[in-house]
């Protein structure tokens, strides 16, 4: 049975599922995401977020790192990342590890 919808929180540890592939397309000179019957072209910031989605960093930690990289206020960055990841999660392009989900998601 399908699992329920995920709500992305600052504590979530997002990751790309194995079948969602983030690469750099040398021919086109741009990041590319390959997913089931879908191709997406993330911009530079989106690709930077996705590269940090390793399943161990929390959204809050990702926001802190990007705030340093782009010298921007962490609250704003976190709000943007939460919205972006919720959208990607709703399209089933992102998984999360929350504390109570770790064992389930990894099984």
């Amino acid at each position, binding site marked *: 049975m*399908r699992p329920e*919808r995920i709500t992305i929180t600052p504590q979530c540890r997002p990751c790309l*599922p*194995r079948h969602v592939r983030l690469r750099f397309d040398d021919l086109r000179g741009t990041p*590319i995401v390959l997913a*089931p019957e879908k191709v997406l072209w993330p911009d530079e910031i989106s690709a930077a977020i996705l590269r940090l989605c390793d399943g161990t960093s929390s959204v809050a930690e990702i926001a802190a790192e990007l705030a340093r990289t782009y010298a921007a206020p962490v609250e704003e960055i976190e709000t943007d990342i939460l919205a972006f990841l919720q959208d990607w999660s*709703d399209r089933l392009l992102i998984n999360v590890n929350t504390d109570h989900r770790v064992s389930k998601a990894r099984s």
Partner: protein
Amino acid sequence: MTVQPPLGMLVELTHRCPLQCGYCSNPLDLMKADRELATSQWQTAFVEAADLGVRQVHLSGGEPTLRRDLEALVSCLSDHGVYTNLITAAVTLTRDRIATLREAGLEHIQVSFQGARRETTELVGRYRGAHEKKRAVAAWAREAGLPLTINAPIHRLNIGEVPNFVALALELDAERLEIANVQYYGWAYLNRAHLLPDYDSVMRQVDYVERVREDLVGRLNIDFVTPDYYADYPKPCMGGWAADAFVLTPDGMMLPCHAAQTIAGLDFDRVTERPLREIWEISDSFNRFRDTEWMPEPCRSCARKDVDFGGCRCQAFAITGDAAATDPSCIHSPLHGALRQMPEPGEIRHRAITRAVEKI
């Protein structure tokens, strides 16, 4: 004009198939196994395609798993950075084969269900036990960690089962459901008097799918291919002729869309006889309807010409006899009204390779 590289490729590895659906997207003139490309010929074409820019492939048929070299083909594509989708009727798949395909690099599997109920699946595909087999394959795919799409081709015989298809997809832990209303070319055109649902059923279906799709955000992605016979404007077929994808047939013919050979007067090339890049970039047939310069009126001055590209060239040819005409599913086509006039329904014609087929 600058020709952009292609991104996607649909590969019909074979026309052989254990099912006999009356809306099959293969041509009426089905080819036998002896005309199919050999493993090394496919591999050469796949490397050329990847070099040209193809990043995603749909391995289809017929039934692609009837090719015993499917693992080698998946592996070749995967090694060249091409994302592989397998489009299968699933009745010939085993648990072991799914595992070896996964190991070869398969990323995603799409399993067709002809009905959401056992009786319908058997009636439409004419294959006993198909429904249970498909359910088992779906479970094995999930067990192997493959993301699953359920493909539901919709027509008059199963349009009432759309809510059941949604329940089936949730039950089988699919992440995508394609509610794909049959497109009326080839076999489906031949059988259209049997298959085209009535207007009210289609409208009920549209309302239902739009509602349930919203309810299931974050759980199930529902892709909805609407039936263009009841639309006001045509669909943007293939995202435009030779815009970013192409098709390879079992004998290596390279086409801008899977039905392109139905258009009389266009000559296509085989990837075994001409470099794939050359066919994509400079062949007459690929350039014939590329972009918008070729368009006559009313498309030429239409504000939607960059939205739907004048619709489908194959449908335009099938109904008007002129492949450059406005797709009759458009309200601006003089033949729009005639689109829904159906011939008398005779006996439904099931696809079969051995049977001689009357040309339409």
